[in-house]
């Protein structure tokens, strides 16, 4: 077989998910869905300010629809796996393979701190999610846990300072992760426009900030004693 034919065959053998562009698209789509969850989850949590009945009622409502709940959970799990799988594959390529010899000097010109730290913020957020599930879903996080009483669990959990601190830190990292991810995903999916892209970038930062503020307001309120 000629070298040309080999090259053609090699290219043809690359499927969508084998390519970097395909993996970035997978990452973008899974990211959008996870972002939707983050947004909904925050909206649900903020009901804490309306008192225990409201929040516990909301939790009960979710559990009353096991099919929907498990559908959502499995979808989210799948998205998390896809998001991690594609990012790990790309990270291995980018960090280990694509540039075997690094520079003696290297200076970034444009990449933001958030963009450059995606590989750090991502895994830390994953650790957080696992602990978050342990604490409030499975009740094995080491903080007081009462089945069905979300409100009490939250208040008791966040009264523990290290837990709150870890939560706050994780939320800030999540905000950073989103501030890059939310605008980057548009380009990964093929959208960039001189008029709208700057707007999208600003919106991404604004939305990420809202999410950070919304989420960290809860442990702060608990620690400050506003929510008891």
């Amino acid at each position: 077989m000629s070298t040309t034919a080999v090259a053609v065959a090699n290219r043809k053998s690359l499927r969508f998910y084998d390519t970097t562009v395909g993996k970035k698209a997978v990452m973008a789509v899974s990211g959008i869905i996870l972002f939707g969850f983050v947004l909904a989850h925050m909206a649900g949590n903020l009901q804490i300010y309306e008192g225990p009945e409201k929040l516990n009622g909301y939790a009960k409502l979710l559990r009353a629809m096991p099919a929907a709940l498990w559908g959502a959970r499995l979808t989210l799990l799948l998205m998390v796996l896809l998001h991690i799988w594609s990012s790990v594959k790309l990270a291995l390529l980018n960090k280990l393979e694509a540039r075997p010899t690094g520079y003696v000097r290297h200076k970034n010109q444009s990449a933001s701190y958030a963009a450059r730290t995606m590989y750090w913020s991502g895994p830390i957020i994953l650790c957080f999610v696992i602990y978050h599930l342990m604490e409030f879903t499975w009740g094995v996080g080491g903080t007081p846990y009462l089945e069905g009483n979300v409100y009490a669990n939250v208040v008791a959990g966040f009264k523990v300072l290290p837990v709150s601190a870890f939560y706050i830190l994780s939320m800030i990292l999540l905000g950073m992760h989103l501030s890059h991810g939310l605008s980057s995903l548009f380009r990964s999916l093929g959208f960039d426009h001189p008029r709208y892209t700057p707007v999208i970038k600003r919106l991404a930062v604004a939305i990420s900030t809202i999410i950070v503020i919304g989420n960290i307001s809860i442990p702060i309120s608990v620690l400050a004693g506003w929510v008891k």
Partner: protein
Amino acid sequence: MALDAKSPGGPIESRWDRARFEMKLVNPANKRKHTIIVVGTGLAGASAAASLGELGYKVKSFCFQDSPRRAHSIAAQGGINAAKNYPNDGDSVFRLFYDTVKGGDFRARESNVYRLAHNSVSIIDQCVAQGVPFAREYGGTLSNRSFGGAQVSRTFYARGQTGQQLLLGAYQALERQVEAGQVEMFPRREMLDLVVIDGAARGIVTRNLVTGQLEHHVADAVVLGTGGYGNVYYLSTNAKGSNCTAIWRAHKRGAYFANPCFTQIHPTCIPVSGDYQSKLTLMSESLRNDGRIWVPKTPGDKRRPEAIPEQDRDYYLEQKYPSFGNLVPRDVASRNAKLVCDQGRGVGPGGLGVYLDLSDAIRRLGEDKIRERYGNLFEMYERITGDDPYKTPMRIYPAIHYTMGGLWVDYYLMSTIPGLFVIGEANFSDHGANRLGASALMQGLSDGYFILPYTVGNYLAQAKPAPADLSHPAFHEAEANVRSITERLMSIEGSRSVDSFHRELGKIVWDNCGMSRNAHDLERAIGKIRELRQEYWQNVRVLGAADDLNQSLEKAGRVADFFELSELMCRDALERNESCGGHFREEYQTPDGEARRNDDEFSYVAAWQYQGDGAPHALHKEPLEFEYVHPSQRSYK
């Protein structure tokens, strides 16, 4: 050997059609049995290799750069001419032909030039179809501008990067054939000798510039599209790597070298700023469309240009040539710049510069329009000089830019060695003694896309080259020749760098065989060149190894050839006792300082035959006949 240009007779409009009809064809099934070597991947080489590949020949393409896309055609800024007459301003194939013959000062072959004008139309179509992003009007049609002294708007352009875009078009077509397996690409290879077997070109010896290995390649025909030799002057607008080695070594194997003294000085380059300078940068001559050229009226006027009032400025081109003004042909514009500088009215450091002032145009059209037209040129100027052309006039000075001379070829672009074809700037054919702006790109693509693919087939069908292989003694002989040159250069171990010799040689040639020449200086220059050449072979220092990537060694071989070529240039300039186009002999001028041609004695192509090292070249003449454009004194007044 009698020089037969093989121009077909008959009405000029139908000569190319007739020639094409009379050419022999290679059966499609037989094409793949023929290997063709194409050296050089500029507009001519890349378009030829791609087109030959498309036809089904096996093509081997060579370039010394790391990629075919880097060939120096890429640096052409202004545009490409074509007789499309889209602007409806009276252009036609005949008018382009007429302008080109006249612009070349009646030293080009009519048949070739007519064919060039004829092909120009197809070139634009081809390039548009390839995706060359030519400038367009709001309605979506192609945009044209007037360029370099033409009185019709026939120049197509892609911002200030026309050469780049056309070359990328040809390069992409070439890569398509590489992908298809029709063309095998050999980058970072320098052709160091031509292999001639039984009187026909049958192969080349190349040096792999990464490993230093000498490699042999056999073929049924060899095509050289290796560009011009402007770097003989050291300082030129050519790329640093541009060289004459391929054509010179082919010349030493028997290809005649035509009109070596016809070199073109481009009027609008950024002036030299110091001794360290390694090359000159051209500013597209399209700037002359909107720019006005002037110097102070009084010598030694040191005021800032903005401070010099209108009445103290001398718009010398507008004064002297009212009908063409700033758009006179390149040779005329260059010579006049030299004239005013010789009078002590030059501007900038060293007094070697004139102003190119766009402030009128900025006032008339607004800064935005000017930015759209010349933005990238202005940026480049500012980057190099630190001056902002929107605020202060640019300084320009002429520089060597193009060489009209080159290997002699017949109408079929074949040299005096059967099977050796020469295309683009490497041949001598279409521009006579002076090339018009936006014609070089046209010629390169005309040769590569629309002439060579036919004429190579014609040659193969008739010559029916016998099988040859690498075991032929001619290959060993050529390799031994190359090896001995390399070994000699490496073994001198003198004290001066190759560049220092090149710089000195360039100055000799520029001072004596540059913008104006005279017999006395030319004779002296020949002596100086010989002396320097002798020193070169005793005192040059080439470090590193021959079997490794070695840029000094690459340069050393090229400069060795420049030495030999520069002597021939002076010899040719000395022999041509007339002024024509870029060749201005001070002894032959009209009372008001214009070039005076001598059609009775010099209406010929001077083709020089190499007769061995040390032996004088033999001159052969190809008489030029003008049936359609009658020689007249060019007048741009």
